[in-house]
């Protein structure tokens, strides 16, 4: 049967001196180097894309955190703002923004003149230096502080988006010459104001606190409502997905018998994890809004939809954490006469908690960045009112951070690209913080058995 004695005349590899490389080995080594280089190139492309993406977002968006304002000495005459003189806010509220507009214009002209700046702009063009929003802001300020009526006070007003863009390099004299909304003369005046120390660019708190601004007022658009809406939704997701996810995992990992129903649940969970997010939006629209009659644009609906989306992530992470607790712990508890339920709730669950929390935070981070399903449940609406505090606020209209980004990309003024990129920076900072917390939890509490 065997044929071991048959002399096989060897040819090729392995024969001859090891110190001399044959041509074939050299060729194979070249192929090896090539293959390795492909791998390195692939990794580098990945990293380069990350850097490119980050650079693109940062270069477009960092300027959103700076905002140009103009200091105007505003005269607030009593006869125009509060004829009655009783300083009753309800009466004063009858003076609309139309009443404040000329005040601001005249004050601006006076401020320019006092600063000794010569300009041949007509009052209307001069007024266009400041944002339309600043009139409303002035009014809100006066209504909140009635005692300033009758005085002349310095007010920091928002500069118009184009003037703001000029100091951020988005608008130039050349582009202004072609733009109907801003003229080179206005830019000159703005520069003069800057030299006079009246115009300055500072940190933009309003970007983080103000509600959305209208199409023509990018300078007044902020993330206040979006951040609040996202926060509400995250609270709902946390409050629902964590307990339900943990309960489901405990059942599947510790109690579930091997039967059809368990199999069905398992298959469903792994499939839900891969269902496109927009399908969850359709579910939210059909079930929560059309069927259950919950309001559109409300954080409660967004929170419910995101909960359903996050559940598979949390369940998968929790089950892994439960699985990592060695059976000896369960045996020890059962051996002391604890019931199965007690062994799980007293021993296994606390030991698995760091893993569960890590998974939950990662799930929340995913939910925070999710956009598509929220578009379908109407969170893309233009919302200027802050939602009230929970629980009622959960039913008020709001937007969410990623949806606000989408919303701003749909507007024509290029200043909104800056705002959208800035909003993404805010979003990424939140995600970074959440992931760092998860990494910290894992490092701090991770147990190796």
């Amino acid at each position: 049967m065997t044929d071991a004695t048959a002399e096989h005349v060897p040819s090729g590899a392995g024969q001859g001196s090891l110190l001399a490389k044959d041509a074939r080995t050299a060729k194979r080594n070249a192929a090896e180097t090539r293959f390795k280089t492909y791998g390195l190139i692939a990794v580098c492309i990945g990293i380069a894309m990350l850097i490119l993406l980050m650079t693109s977002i940062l270069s477009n968006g960092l300027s959103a955190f700076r905002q140009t304002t103009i200091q105007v000495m505003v005269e607030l005459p009593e006869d125009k703002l509060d004829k009655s003189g009783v300083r009753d806010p309800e009466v004063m509220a009858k003076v609309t923004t139309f009443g404040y507009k000329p005040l601001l214009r005249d004050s601006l002209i006076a401020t320019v003149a006092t600063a000794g700046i010569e300009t041949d702009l007509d009052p209307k063009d001069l007024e266009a230096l400041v944002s339309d929003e600043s009139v409303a802001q002035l009014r809100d300020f006066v209504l909140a502080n009635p005692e300033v009526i009758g005085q002349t006070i310095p007010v920091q007003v928002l500069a118009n988006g184009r003037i703001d863009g000029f100091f951020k390099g988005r608008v130039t004299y050349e582009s202004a010459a072609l733009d109907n909304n801003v003229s080179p003369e206005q830019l000159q005046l703005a520069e003069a104001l800057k030299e006079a120390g009246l115009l300055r660019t500072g940190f933009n708190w309003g970007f983080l606190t103000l509600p959305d601004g209208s199409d023509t007022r990018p300078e007044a658009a902020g993330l206040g409502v979006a951040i609040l809406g996202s926060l509400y939704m995250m609270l709902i997701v946390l409050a629902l997905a964590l307990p339900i996810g943990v309960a489901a995992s405990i059942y599947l990992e510790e109690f579930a018998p091997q039967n059809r129903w368990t199999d069905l649940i398992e298959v469903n969970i792994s499939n839900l994890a891969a269902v496109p997010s927009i399908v969850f939006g359709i579910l939210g629209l059909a079930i929560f809004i059309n069927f259950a009659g919950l309001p559109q644009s409300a954080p409660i609906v967004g929170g419910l939809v995101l909960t359903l989306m996050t559940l598979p992530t949390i369940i998968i992470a929790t089950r892994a954490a439960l699985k990592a607790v060695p059976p000896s712990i369960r045996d020890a508890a059962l051996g002391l006469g604890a019931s199965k339920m007690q062994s799980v709730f007293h021993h296994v669950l606390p030991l698995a908690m760091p893993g569960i929390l890590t998974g939950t935070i990662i799930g929340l981070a995913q939910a925070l960045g999710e956009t598509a399903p929220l578009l379908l449940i109407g969170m893309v609406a233009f919302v200027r009112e802050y939602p009230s505090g929970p629980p009622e606020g959960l039913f008020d209209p709001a937007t969410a951070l990623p949806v606000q980004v989408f919303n701003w990309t749909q507007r024509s003024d290029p200043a909104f690209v800056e705002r959208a990129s800035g909003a993404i920076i805010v979003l990424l900072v939140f995600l970074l913080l959440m992931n760092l917390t998860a990494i910290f939890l894992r490092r701090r509490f991770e147990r190796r058995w």
Partner: protein
Amino acid sequence: MNDMRLTERAVDQETTKITARKVQVYYGDNHAIKNVDVDIADKTVTAFIGPSGCGKSTFLRCINRMNDTISTARVTGDILIDGEDIYDKRVDPVQLRAKVGMVFQKPNPFPKSIYDNVAYGPRIHGLSSNKADLDDIVERSLRRAALWGEVKDRLAAPGTGLSGGQQQRLCIARAVATSPEVLLMDEPCSALDPIATAQVEELIDELRQNYSVVIVTHSMQQAARVSQRTAFFHLGHLVEYGETGKIFTSPEDPRTESYISGRIG
């Protein structure tokens, strides 16, 4: 030293294939092989025995530089095959491994057909110029591994579908297909049942006629059955090396004696 005398005697009798001098192996901070000197003869079966963790497999893996694949492993000293230092910078481990084949503890056929398993080595080393040539190599290798009769009708079947013993013989066929000069076997029978073990042992005895075979084994009986020379490793040291019969009947070192009589291990 005793063992030095033994090795010298071995060199006198036969042509030496592999010479190791002052070999040290470190895994990170762990000093796994300590100052091993050994001469392995051509056309002989040499067995490495010793308790688990004694370094016998580690030393075996040095001979075809498989330790290169472990990033923390570091080898110093000289290992020469036919007088050439295999750790020389100019030596390509790929070429070396074609010359020094290896069979592993657990049968590890590739998830390919039986034919492709055997043809893998010749293909990558370019040993055949045409299909007929390759068919020839495959058949000869399978015959040499005493497997031809069992598989000649199903060469296209997957290698993973064979029984454990057949798989291990397939791996031996795969190793001899590149026509190596040295065959390293790392506990080749530990995953096999007694009948398969007997077949593989018989095969090893036949392979001796063409190759220098080095086998690591757990089982002293196996070492006694198949090898002409035996080296006993303990805690990284080569304690004793000599004729198999002599090692098992009148060991010189007390540690060898204790191991053989079952007191350590």
